[in-house]
């Protein structure tokens, strides 16, 4: 693997002034910001601005839009903390951004999602038959073919949160329930619940696609 070019502050200054920062890996810019040799505060600011400009759209695309302000509050907070961590010589996240910039952002956004879900505690009640108390199963919820599944991303995005996550895990190959990793344990619900969520998702998608007779 080719080692990344080692750039001096003068190199970075020239790149910043000629608009060449886009040619550099963000990890290199993080390392430059954290370098003791970087004493030019204005230059460090330019590098940080560029990194923030990379981080924001990356996070926006992945943020759950049901979060406050469409997820933008979380995005702004993560980006702000990222910038502080990068210039803090003792911040572990600063090291992390220098090792894998986008992966660290992904981790921090996942943390925010989890915290938000804990706050929300959104658990969809299972539909239950009033007479028998049995959990109701959606009718005729056969699985989608790979071709059908490949064309329904917009429909998937519109599913209720729990149904979407269950369906995505199902599509990623996770079993509903098993002794190993399964959707039920990953979502922290009973296997029947996970199964019902997937079937409801599939039934909804098939209905929207007009596949049910």
């Amino acid at each position, binding site marked *: 693997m080719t080692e990344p070019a080692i750039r001096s502050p003068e190199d970075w200054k020239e790149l910043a002034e000629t608009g060449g920062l886009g040619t550099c890996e963000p990890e290199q810019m993080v390392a430059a910001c954290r370098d003791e040799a970087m004493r030019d505060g204005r230059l460090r600011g330019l590098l940080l601005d560029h990194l923030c400009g990379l981080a924001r759209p990356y996070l926006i695309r*992945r943020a759950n839009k049901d979060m406050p302000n469409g997820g933008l509050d979380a995005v702004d907070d993560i980006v702000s903390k990222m910038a502080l961590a990068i210039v803090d010589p003792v911040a572990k996240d600063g090291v992390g951004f220098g090792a894998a910039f*986008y992966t660290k952002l992904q981790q921090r956004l996942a943390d925010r999602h*989890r915290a938000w879900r804990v706050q929300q505690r959104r658990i969809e009640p299972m539909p239950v038959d009033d007479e028998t108390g049995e959990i109701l199963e959606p009718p005729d919820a056969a699985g989608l073919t790979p071709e059908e599944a490949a064309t329904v991303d917009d429909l998937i995005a519109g599913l209720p949160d729990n149904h979407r996550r269950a369906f995505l895990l199902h599509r990623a190959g996770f079993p509903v329930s098993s002794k190993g*990793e*399964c959707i039920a344990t990953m979502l922290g619900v009973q296997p029947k619940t996970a199964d019902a969520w997937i079937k409801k998702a599939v039934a909804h998608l098939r209905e929207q696609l007009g596949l049910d007779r």
Partner: protein
Amino acid sequence: MSTEDLDDIIFRFHQAAEPLTPELVGDWVGRYPQFADDIRAHAVEIVDMRFLAGQDAGDEAAPADEPATPVAGTTLRAVAKAAGTSLRDLADDLGIARSIVSDLNTATIETASVRGRFVRLASERLGVTMEWLSTVLAGPGEASVGAAFKAEGMPGVGRRRTWEEAVRDSDMDAGRKAFWTAEER
């Protein structure tokens, strides 16, 4: 184990989750059973975030997949929105006057006079190729709200300002004006 170790492990899990499979999750849960719930929860979030992003995680430096040429009538505002930003934020990110970006959106700047530096930096920021962005900038642009109330008869193309005029008339300082009017080597 301390919370700090959990964070390290979860970070490494995120790095390893390319791709994310049941076997991978099982492997990590087996290695760190005390963090099983955290690992599984992050696995779910990774799957969800990747779906929301609409693409495989990893190569964020490459431009997003786009058609060979933009759909006729695509505006700079639409491109910015697709990139998760706005005209205003695009201008601020690039360090250029908002009025110039706005004028590019409404196609009131001579396309041929737009500096290659702007096209390059904006395309990098928006995650599209320079050729693709150039095509957008050469398009008809977004219709001005006031035009419908002023026009008599068929609308035509009014006089467009050159890039130099737009930069000169903007509120940027002399240094920024020089930066944006310089020709790239």
